[in-house]
């Protein structure tokens, strides 16, 4: 868990940075919401106190008569909670990496997750403020989900939501666990060669991870970057022009979104098939099959020295 998180943190941060420095309308629009959530996830630990305070007040009002139970919960330590939060964060991160440009219902999911997290957090704070006695902490999850069961107060939306997710996770342990490993994306290793070329050192490795033909990814990269390049003997990709890691990462992300993750369920477990001039993405998880945009070079401006071209053609 902790490892996963460690792996993801940089990506999330990078994404945030990238959002500022590069421009991509689609990505910017779609990523906006996710990045916000992402921020929350990553920095939530520092940012939330105010919110927690407010919410803590509310909770005090609401839960006057559940104080007993709260005491039971006090025991669990901040670390435990962090671990629990990490769980959720990692899941979020997983999804984020894949489906950066997720659509509405994905955003909904993310929001839901963040709500859940907030809720747990405010309990955390409650517990700290009520200064914890040291007891065992196993029961916290069940208590969280059934907080209202002993009382006759109305359950809150958050509690219900929490409960639904807990049940879902309990019943499908492999659903969450299975996804996690697959979604680890290694960042591209990008090194400048001289002043005019760039090496994408782990290009072949990334192709293998994505289960895509190197040629396909190559075509996409070159078309997007508007340049030329080829794979050399050491299986690294040499691209003409100067590119930074985050720029390549940006393009990779778009590739994954269009050609790797299922457009319906976003599972990366897909097969790209060519069928009558068009590429189709067949999902192994949900069975959906849809055509994907063909890679087009489009208009290419003449950037080479015209004299050189004239010399070549003449």
């Amino acid at each position, binding site marked *: 868990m902790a490892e996963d998180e460690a792996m993801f943190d940089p990506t999330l941060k990078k994404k945030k940075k990238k959002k500022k420095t590069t421009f991509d309308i*689609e990505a910017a629009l779609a990523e906006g919401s996710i990045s916000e959530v992402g921020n929350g996830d990553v920095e939530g630990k520092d940012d939330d106190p105010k919110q927690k305070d407010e919410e803590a007040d509310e909770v005090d009002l609401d839960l006057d008569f559940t104080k007993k139970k709260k005491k039971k919960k006090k025991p669990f330590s901040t670390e435990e909670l962090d671990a629990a939060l990490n769980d959720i964060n990692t899941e979020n991160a997983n999804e984020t990496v894949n489906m950066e440009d997720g659509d509405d219902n994905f955003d909904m999911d993310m929001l839901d997750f963040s709500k859940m997290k907030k809720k747990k957090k405010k309990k955390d704070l409650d517990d700290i403020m009520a200064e914890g006695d040291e007891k065992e902490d196993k029961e916290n999850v069940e208590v969280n989900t059934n907080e209202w069961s002993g009382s006759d107060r109305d359950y809150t939306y958050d509690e219900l939501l929490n409960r639904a997710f807990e049940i879902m996770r309990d019943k499908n342990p492999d659903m969450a666990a299975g996804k996690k490993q697959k979604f680890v994306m290694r960042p591209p290793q990008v090194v400048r060669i001289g002043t005019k070329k760039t090496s994408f050192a782990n290009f072949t490795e990334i192709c293998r991870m994505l289960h895509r033909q190197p040629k396909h990814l190559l075509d996409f990269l070159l078309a997007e970057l*508007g340049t030329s390049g080829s794979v050399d003997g050491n299986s690294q990709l040499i691209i003409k022009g*100067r590119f930074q890691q985050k720029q390549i990462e940006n393009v990779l992300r778009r590739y994954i979104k269009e050609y790797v993750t299922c457009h319906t369920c976003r599972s990366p477990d897909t097969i790209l098939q060519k069928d009558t*001039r068009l590429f189709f993405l067949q999902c192994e998880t949900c069975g959906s099959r849809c055509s994907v945009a*063909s890679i087009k070079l489009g*208009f290419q401006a003449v950037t080479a020295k015209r004299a050189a071209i004239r010399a070549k053609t003449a």
Partner: protein
Amino acid sequence: MSIQNLNTFDPFADASKGADDDVQDGLVHIRIQQRNGRKTLTTVQGLSSEYDLKKIVRACKKEFACNGTVIEHPEYGEVLQLQGDQRENICQWLTKAGLAKPDQLKVHGF
């Protein structure tokens, strides 16, 4: 090799050309290309031929303080070409001027 070359060819280019001369897929493709050194070039492909591209380029040059030109391409029609990375500028400008909707703009590059 030959198969891959086919990939860059839009199979529906001819079909959509019949219906609408200048727009291959109804999208305005905004691309960036590196030139020598740190110099870059922005190209805008797929603007409707109903627009006077010369007027547009004149306005853009003034607005973004960059040079620009209109290039006539046999396959892609008239293409706008601007100096520097004007992708953000041109997106905003096209949207503001009502020449294209934000979802019609397809920004390529890094």
